[in-house]
């Protein structure tokens, strides 16, 4: 057996093992890994997610048994203190000695702590390991309990901004302190930095540039930072994230060649000055550079593994430092040479302070080659631009189209994944080419996106390439003559649209009929609600009809909350409510001890109702003229409105009245996802109608109708469908639009995403809805009419039929309530005990 010892169990050390065992000829080698940290290798790139609730296990790169399964010996919590190069042995702090044939140093880096007076004070931390994060969390909790709110982060680079987000997630106000005159000076130019800064400042994060820290103020604990310009920043915690320092101690004690500013020197085989010792990752000094990114580290791991197994793979000459990430919610990307500008190179810059977008591309003077660029605020073009740069692809006649989009035409100037050469690296974290992805499908080793991921590991790093991989998989499947379908789940080999037609044509009214004839197995949490929703959309069945297959919120006609109790939302159409009805809601909340909050949809949400109290609560509400607000359903939620011309001096029309009419028209109708509407009486748009699935704005001569907008994770403005139309036309178009969406969208796809995927986009949709291109408008209107005419309040149904009430009790064999429910005070109300 040949002994390979890996020192360091970080991301790169782990990758080395993974690469090594996947290569041929490795059977005669025994790998032993030493890690000084107590746990298995974990994902440091996503470390800040630890604050957002991920556990150490979530971040772990492998399972407990991975090392054992692959015959790798893992020694955690054991630190290597010395190397005896003559005897080829290493020594650990436990006074043990191990022999090696090859030694791989993957010791990574430590946080660089600038020599500032007072950095040893309590409350000063570095941001590097899970243990650091635990210590930061504990301290933040302590100072918050004492009423402190301010914390500083030293370093305005990539890591510093990550740390600022983490500090913010802990509920403190972060201040970013940077020595340079701008943020991310290594990746961004002045314009891009300024844009990033203004976006971050909008989030109430303090940015302090040009600041040299003199000393840390405070006795034992940090109380502030004193800068060279005599300014004092009062903070109770400081997180230092000002750069990295290679962990090259072992290289130094054993006399390996080390760079002037640290790092163990390696050649293009990743060999150090001792040919049996390799160095990879952030400890390796290659081309006089330390590379603090995952992708080059992974490549080094691969090269070292190849070399030890007598392969001939070497590290490439120039290393790509392109990156794309989201910093505190702001998209930032840079690729190639972001700064280059000289007599042969022109920079094209697009800056939009209104939307907070900055884009720069550097193009050769002849307009033929893209050399690099920067994107801030919107990095959706990154994948396309990066491919053009990396593959030296031809540019459009007007290179500015790359960042502005071609005006007056359809389609993207970035081309599609189909145009890329096979050598194009699609996933740069795992170095997967387009060829490798296509090949796996063509040769039949993979047949789905999931298979491709398993086989090639594409998308498993940062995940930024996922849309491209999906496109390539779909395009390749299509070229192979395979039908590409978004089938619902393992129980049905159909899309939602196909299932919709199957139910309709066969007039099925029961889930089990459908699965017996067209599916297999017992169904699941995905297909059952889909079929229940289809029944509702076709027959206007309420959620009381298919209780067993309804999604769980629909089953109990309420929204389940954190502790298993429910919230209750009565309908308040258009947000218009009388004083009497408000008092009823207040009385109910008092009687059942409910937490109350006004929702974004202009109604009142009552939280903390026990399952068995739901019918009692609704009895009172319905007796007083309320009905279900369907806040739990994939159906119309609410139509939000401004007060309109009844009161407002700017109002052009009765927006509240129209909103109430529309809400009552479409209430209760089940759809693939929730639907929200908005009506504004003038272009000031107080109802935020363009952030809804359908929105109306009163203008001179009628209403402008917008469709397919939403808030949520990917906010989208609704797009104009028709201008200056009257109310009857609005309703006609809305009937057609909603019914077409209900018929054709996939499960849990909102209108904005549905439109995105619709071939032909908005132009096509206009053809269908306004000009009846498919000849289905009459049918759509008839279907909608039948739904509108048969509305019933499902809570009223429950109260009228004792049989339906049976499901609203926690125990089958007892009338008791769930005794696991516990509340703690929250301001003047209450909340469930924290998780």
């Amino acid at each position, binding site marked *: 057996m040949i002994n390979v010892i890996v020192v360091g169990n970080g991301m790169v050390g782990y990758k080395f093992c993974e690469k090594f065992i996947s290569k041929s000829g490795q059977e005669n080698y025994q790998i032993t890994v030493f890690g000084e940290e107590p746990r298995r290798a974990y994902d440091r790139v996503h470390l800040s997610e630890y604050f957002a609730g991920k556990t150490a296990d979530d971040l772990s790169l492998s399972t407990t048994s991975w090392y054992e399964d692959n015959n790798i010996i893992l020694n955690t919590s054991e630190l290597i203190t010395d190397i005896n190069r003559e005897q080829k042995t290493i020594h650990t702090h436990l006074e043990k000695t191990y022999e090696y044939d090859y030694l791989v140093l993957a010791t990574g880096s430590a946080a660089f702590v600038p020599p500032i007076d007072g950095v040893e004070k309590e409350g000063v931390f570095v941001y590097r390991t899970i243990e650091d994060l635990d210590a930061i969390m504990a301290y933040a909790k302590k100072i918050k309990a004492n009423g402190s709110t301010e914390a500083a982060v030293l370093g305005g680079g990539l890591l510093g901004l990550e740390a600022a987000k983490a500090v913010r997630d802990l509920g403190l106000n972060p201040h970013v302190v940077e020595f340079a005159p701008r943020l991310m000076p290594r990746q961004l130019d002045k314009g891009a930095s300024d844009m990033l800064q203004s976006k971050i400042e909008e989030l109430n994060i303090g940015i302090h540039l040009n600041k040299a820290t003199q000393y840390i103020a405070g006795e034992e604990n940090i109380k502030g930072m004193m800068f060279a310009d005599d300014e004092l920043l009062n903070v109770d915690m400081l997180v230092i994230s000002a750069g990295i320092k290679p962990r090259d101690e072992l290289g130094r004690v054993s006399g390996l060649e080390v760079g002037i500013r640290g790092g163990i020197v390696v050649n293009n085989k990743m060999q150090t000055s001792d040919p049996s010792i390799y160095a990879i990752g952030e400890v390796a000094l290659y081309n006089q550079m330390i590379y603090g990114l995952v992708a080059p580290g992974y490549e080094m791991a691969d090269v070292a593994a190849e070399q030890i197994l007598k392969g001939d793979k070497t590290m490439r000459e120039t290393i790509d430092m392109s990156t794309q990430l989201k910093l505190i919610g702001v998209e930032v990307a840079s690729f190639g040479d972001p700064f280059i500008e000289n007599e042969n190179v022109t920079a094209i810059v697009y800056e939009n302070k209104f939307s907070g977008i900055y884009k720069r591309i550097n193009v050769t003077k002849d307009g033929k080659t893209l050399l690099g660029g920067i994107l801030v605020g919107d990095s959706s073009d990154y994948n396309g631009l990066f491919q053009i740069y990396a593959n030296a692809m031809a540019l459009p006649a007007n290179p500015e189209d790359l960042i502005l989009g071609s005006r007056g035409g359809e389609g993207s100037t970035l081309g599609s994944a189909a145009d890329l050469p096979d050598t194009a690296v699609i996933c740069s974290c795992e170095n997967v080419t387009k060829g490798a992805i296509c090949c796996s499908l063509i040769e039949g080793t993979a047949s789905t996106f999931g298979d491709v991921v398993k086989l090639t590991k594409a998308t498993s790093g940062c995940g930024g390439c996922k849309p491209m991989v999906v496109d390539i998989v779909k395009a390749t499947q299509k070229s192979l003559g395979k039908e590409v379908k978004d089938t619902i789940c393992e129980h049905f080999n159909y899309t939602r649209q196909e299932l919709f037609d199957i139910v309709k044509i066969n007039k099925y009214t029961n889930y089990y009929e459908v699965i017996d004839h067209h599916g297999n197995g017992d169904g699941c949490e995905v297909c059952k609600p889909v079929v229940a929703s289809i029944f509702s959309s076709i027959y206007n069945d309420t959620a009381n009809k298919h209780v067993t297959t309804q999604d769980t*919120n629909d089953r*109990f006609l309420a929204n389940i909350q954190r502790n298993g109790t429910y919230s209750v939302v009565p309908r308040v159409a258009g947000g218009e409510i009388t004083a009497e009805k408000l008092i009823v809601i207040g009385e109910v909340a008092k009687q059942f001890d409910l937490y109350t909050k006004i929702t974004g949809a202009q109604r009142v949400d009552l939280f903390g109702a026990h399952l068995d109290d739901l019918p009692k609560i609704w009895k009172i509400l319905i007796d007083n003229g309320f009905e279900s607000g369907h806040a739990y359903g994939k159906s119309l939620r609410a139509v939000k409105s401004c007060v309109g011309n009844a009161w407002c001096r700017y109002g052009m029309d009765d927006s509240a009245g129209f909103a109430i009419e529309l809400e009552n028209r479409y209430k209760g109708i089940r759809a693939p996802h929730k639907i929200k509407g908005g009506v504004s009486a003038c272009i000031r748009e107080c109802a935020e109608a363009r952030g809804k699935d359908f929105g109306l704005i009163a203008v001179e001569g009628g209403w402008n109708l917008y469709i397919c907008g939403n808030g949520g994770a990917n906010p989208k403005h609704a797009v104009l469908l028709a201008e200056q139309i009257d109310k009857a036309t609005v309703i006609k178009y809305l009937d057609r639009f909603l019914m077409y969406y209900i018929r054709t969208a996939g499960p849990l796809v909102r209108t904005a995403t549905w439109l995105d995927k619709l071939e032909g986009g908005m132009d096509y949709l206009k053809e269908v809805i306004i000009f009846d291109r498919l000849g289905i408008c009459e049918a759509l209107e008839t279907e909608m009419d039948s739904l509108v005419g048969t509305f019933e309040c499902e809570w009223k149904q429950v109260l009228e039929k004792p049989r339906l009430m049976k499901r609203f009790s926690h125990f*089958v064999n007892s009338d008791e309530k769930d005794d696991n429910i516990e509340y703690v005070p929250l301001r003047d109300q209450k909340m469930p005990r924290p998780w």
Partner: protein
Amino acid sequence: MASLLLRAELGSEKKLNPMEELLNQYETVNLSAVKTWFKAGNIKDFPSNRGGCIKYKNKQIAIFNFERRNEWYACQNACPHKMEMVLSRGITGSADGVPKIACPMHKKTFSLVDGSNLNGDDYKIATYPVKIEGDEVFVGFLE
């Protein structure tokens, strides 16, 4: 480095929080080990193809009637992820033929045969044997 190691050692002495204590009440019972068959109710009390929750001593147990398969299953009612008493309200189904329950909180799914998590997480649930005698439903316990 010494402090790092020290912290790691301290970590292993973590005290159980109340939720972990709650979860520790639930342990899978194998059919052969049953000491008590508790009468949970009449089969009519349990809706077909979904769940119902029963109380036994200080335990909450979810019982599922897979009518189509003519099979019954029982498991802890607490979701192992956040310890809320909700599993009986989830949607039943199968994955590759294995009967499963999806938690209504975060849609994590669990095998009702061995309690394992089917989404690849570490969470696991305790399962209990069920027997039907006449039209009565019994759940097996160790105590």
